[in-house]
């Protein structure tokens, strides 16, 4: 095994232990695996380790030819997402007031977390590209923006499907929904900008600056439910979500996080290959070739 992968694997294993194994054990009636750590702190450790592990895999990835790490992450993502969805659909009990419709939470909330995380990664890549002038960060920025847009689109659609039976409408111009739509279209606009600019230097700088500006909306989306009177409920925490709902929520969060990381790695490769062609010096004309000889 490649030694460079070890820290990432350890981080993901710790995240999976506190986020998944302890919850699965508690779900099966086995207690005491939490090492005496409070459930809120366990969730924080799990989330931090999972995010740091995924980011570690992203940063050690050389955006080269091998797609093995991405394939492994995608495989792990499919397994976690399948387990989480099965438990969410068939094992977890329905919620007291929303009934079975609440099961949408197990895909909606992880999509929201991962969409905001993908855009945070895009922001970090934009800053690193501007300061380091390394094209790897430009490729990763494009990858994370596109994956963030896909997840934000999914988030809006899932939200609309959940809103209809609970609020009575598919869409409402509520602060959370409006700021999320603004975020989706802002990052979609950056993707359009990247498509229309042919010069890779201008494209990289302009889109990095635009990403930093658009990122201002991410904390606004997150805090919108606290700052304004919103129809959308406030953020959930282990204290506000019933223990019976933890396992499917966390399994799906891990699943979508792994898939998101794998997608960014693959998408960054596509951008890197395009950049390689664009930045390669033009082939010498026959006359120039003769002179050179």
């Amino acid at each position, binding site marked *: 095994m490649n030694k460079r992968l070890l820290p990432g694997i350890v981080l993901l294993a710790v995240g999976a232990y506190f986020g998944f194994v302890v919850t699965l054990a508690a779900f099966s009636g086995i207690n005491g695996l939490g090492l005496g750590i409070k459930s809120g702190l366990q969730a924080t450790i799990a989330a931090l380790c999972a995010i740091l592990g995924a980011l570690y895999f992203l940063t050690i990835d050389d955006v080269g030819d091998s797609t093995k790490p991405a394939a492994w992450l995608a495989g792990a993502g499919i397994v976690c997402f399948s387990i989480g969805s099965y438990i969410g659909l068939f094992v977890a009990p329905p919620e007291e007031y929303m009934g079975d419709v609440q099961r949408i939470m197990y895909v909606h909330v992880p999509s929201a977390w991962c969409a905001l995380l993908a855009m945070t990664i895009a922001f970090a890549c934009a800053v690193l590209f501007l300061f380091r002038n390394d094209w790897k960060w430009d490729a990763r920025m494009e990858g994370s923006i596109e994956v963030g847009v896909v997840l934000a689109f999914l988030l809006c659609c899932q939200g609309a499907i*959940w809103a209809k039976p609970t609020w009575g409408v598919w869409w409402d111009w509520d602060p959370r929904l409006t700021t999320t739509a603004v975020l989706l279209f802002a990052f979609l606009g950056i993707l359009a900008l990247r498509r229309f600019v042919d010069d890779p230097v201008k494209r990289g700088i302009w889109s990095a600056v635009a990403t930093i500006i658009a990122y201002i909306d991410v904390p606004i989306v997150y805090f919108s439910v606290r700052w304004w009177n919103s129809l959308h409920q406030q953020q959930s925490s282990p204290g506000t979500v019933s223990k019976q709902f933890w396992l499917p929520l966390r399994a799906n969060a891990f699943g979508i996080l792994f898939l998101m990381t794998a997608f960014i790695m693959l998408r960054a490769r596509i951008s890197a290959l395009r950049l390689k062609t664009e930045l390669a010096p033009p082939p010498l004309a026959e006359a120039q070739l003769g002179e050179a000889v």
Partner: protein
Amino acid sequence: MTQGVVSGGWNFVIAAYGLTAAVLVIYGVTLITRLREARKRQ
């Protein structure tokens, strides 16, 4: 919906899970296809 409690709604749940799975699978497939095309162009 009666007295603040939502009853039924499995069709919405199936739609949300189906859409999520479909979008993730389709996006994954397009990524693999685009990567293969980009490699061929090299």
